[in-house]
């Protein structure tokens, strides 16, 4: 049995290894800089704030055997006139190919990465890794779901369109002294998880099935996802989650057995406008255990892809909670995007993030929250 000290040393060795010079041989650097100015109003009060984000990414796309990718994100802002910043590492992954025979090569991924199982922009019951719906949702974001997890995965091709993807989910460190980020310790190996995905094509339908086990709450989550086209593109998924372990409820711990499930469906269609612009229509819906059904409608229109507009909403069918955003994206020059968004959130549904826009849904009251955001993005 490995003692607590041994585990700590093991974790320290891992951290040291992570800090050592990596496999990036000829890094390509990309930088995304966003300057955001926003005004929010609720209950006769309004606040204004300016902040920015900078995402620096290093990768090595030229290597055919090993592909590292490191993404460092910084949110920067002013507090009492002094510059402050908060750094995160949303992605730190290494992919490598390993020949298993003369004619067969498998692929592996390790680190903090994203696996996107199933189909769905907002609602995706097939995403048993990150959840059928996002924990927080910014309707003004260009990518609505980009959660990452610490994982080790394999990719075994089964022909051009099919593959088998086993997955090991490795728990991160946990805080041992309040919120002090330096006071961390590894968690028990029994908190690990894992699963697999199998994707193939049946006729013109893309089929996908998989399963994930999470040691943290001893839950089992199988899913089935289908995607095809019948006049419009469609996708549907169903998943269930059976929890047999201890589930924390309201600060206490209680032994329980729980079952839950989600079913999602989506439709997507794009049409040419009479004068050359394009319209796109998307409608996603979710039926979820323990919550009201919800919808995600989205309409986009662009006279040019250099100038696009959108209207998207999340509507919880309890009749009380919704969030909507309308926006304009303009790319006047290479790498530069100017955007203006307005959003309106009403209702008090929390936990799902569906009623939240650019604010924490916990702060929502019955009064509508209105925000206007101007964004300048430059990629170089």
């Amino acid at each position, binding site marked *: 049995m490995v003692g607590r000290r041994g585990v700590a040393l093991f974790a320290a060795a891992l951290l040291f290894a992570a800090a050592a010079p990596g496999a990036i041989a000829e890094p390509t650097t990309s930088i995304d800089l966003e300057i955001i100015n926003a005004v929010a109003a609720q209950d006769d009060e309004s606040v204004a704030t300016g902040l920015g984000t900078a995402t620096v990414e290093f990768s090595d796309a030229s290597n055919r055997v090993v592909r590292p990718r490191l993404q460092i994100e910084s949110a920067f802002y002013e507090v009492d006139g002094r510059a402050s910043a908060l750094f995160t590492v949303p992605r730190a992954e290494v992919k490598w190919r390993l020949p298993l025979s003369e004619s067969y090569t498998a692929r592996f991924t390790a680190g903090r990465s994203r696996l996107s199982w199933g189909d769905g922009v907002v609602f995706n019951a097939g995403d048993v890794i990150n959840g059928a719906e996002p924990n927080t949702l910014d309707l003004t974001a260009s990518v609505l779901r980009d959660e990452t997890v610490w994982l080790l995965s394999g990719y075994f*091709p089964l022909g051009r369109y099919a593959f088998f993807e086993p997955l090991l989910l490795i728990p991160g460190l946990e805080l041992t002294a309040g919120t002090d980020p330096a006071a961390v310790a590894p968690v028990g190996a029994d908190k690990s998880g894992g699963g697999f995905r199998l994707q193939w094509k049946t006729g013109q339908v893309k089929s996908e099935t998989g399963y994930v086990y999470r040691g943290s709450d001893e839950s089992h989550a199988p899913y089935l996802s289908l995607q095809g086209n019948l006049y419009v593109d469609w996708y549907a998924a169903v998943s269930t989650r059976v929890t047999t372990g201890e589930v924390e409820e309201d600060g206490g711990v209680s032994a329980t057995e729980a079952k839950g499930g989600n079913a999602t469906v989506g439709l997507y269609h794009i049409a040419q406008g009479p004068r*050359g612009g394009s319209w796109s229509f998307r409608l996603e819906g979710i039926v979820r255990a323990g919550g009201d059904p919800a919808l995600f409608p989205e309409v986009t229109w662009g006279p040019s892809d250099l100038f696009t507009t959108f209207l998207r909403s999340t509507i919880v069918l309890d009749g009380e909670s919704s969030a909507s955003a309308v926006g304009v994206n303009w790319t006047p020059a290479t790498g530069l995007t100017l955007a203006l968004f307005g959003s309106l959130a009403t209702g008090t549904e929390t936990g799902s993030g569906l009623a939240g826009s650019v604010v924490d849904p916990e702060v929502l009251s019955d009064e509508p929250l209105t925000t206007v955001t101007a964004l300048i993005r430059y990629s170089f």
Partner: protein
Amino acid sequence: MKRTATGIIGVVIFAWTALPVAAADLTAEEIVERLESNQVQETNHATATMVVRDRFGERTSTMESWSKGRDVTLIEFTSPAERGQKVLRTENEIYLFYPDAAELIRLQGAALRESMLGSDISYEDMTGGKTLLETYRVELLGEETIHGHRCYKVGFEARRRNAAYPRQTVWIDTELFVARRSEQYALSGRLLKEIEMDRIETIGGYTIARRMIISDALKRNSSTEFTLDDVQFDIQVDDDLFSLEELSW
């Protein structure tokens, strides 16, 4: 021998390679066969620059592409704003990969008409796989001079309703058998796109147009300039390059 469209996009099928041949009293079918038979490469690897201009602004994207046979093409965008985005065309499908969302999107139906990265090139332009004569009935409409070069004017009419363009007119150089201009029309006869090809060069034994300017007639002041920065023919390209594994790599 396998035949390839050699291009990053299906539109280029008209544009690229040609060998000088003597041409006299050729039928439209023979002219088109010469056009296509000059596009005989096992494989193709290219780096290219695409400049999109319209009344809202201008955007430059760079990319690298690989093709093998007539059916399969893989494009990876290398410019900072789109770095890592990939497009895979295999047979009648298009797959897109967005690295941040780690999302593999399969395009079918009307979504294929969406423009690729805001250009005047649609994903549907990339689909194909059949020869021109399998897809179109052709008719020799005469000869005209394009930018000082004598060209056959050939009309194309789609054999099936689901062709990307029901009607086309292509001006094919009478000596080089490379297209110098193309116009694409809707079934109603409305002009959809115009393509001009220039910078004709011989590379690796093949004569190709290194630059195309594509104008979408439905959009005001809109054009896409597509330039081949580097191109190699008949090199070793692994079949595994055109797979979902490579797309998500």
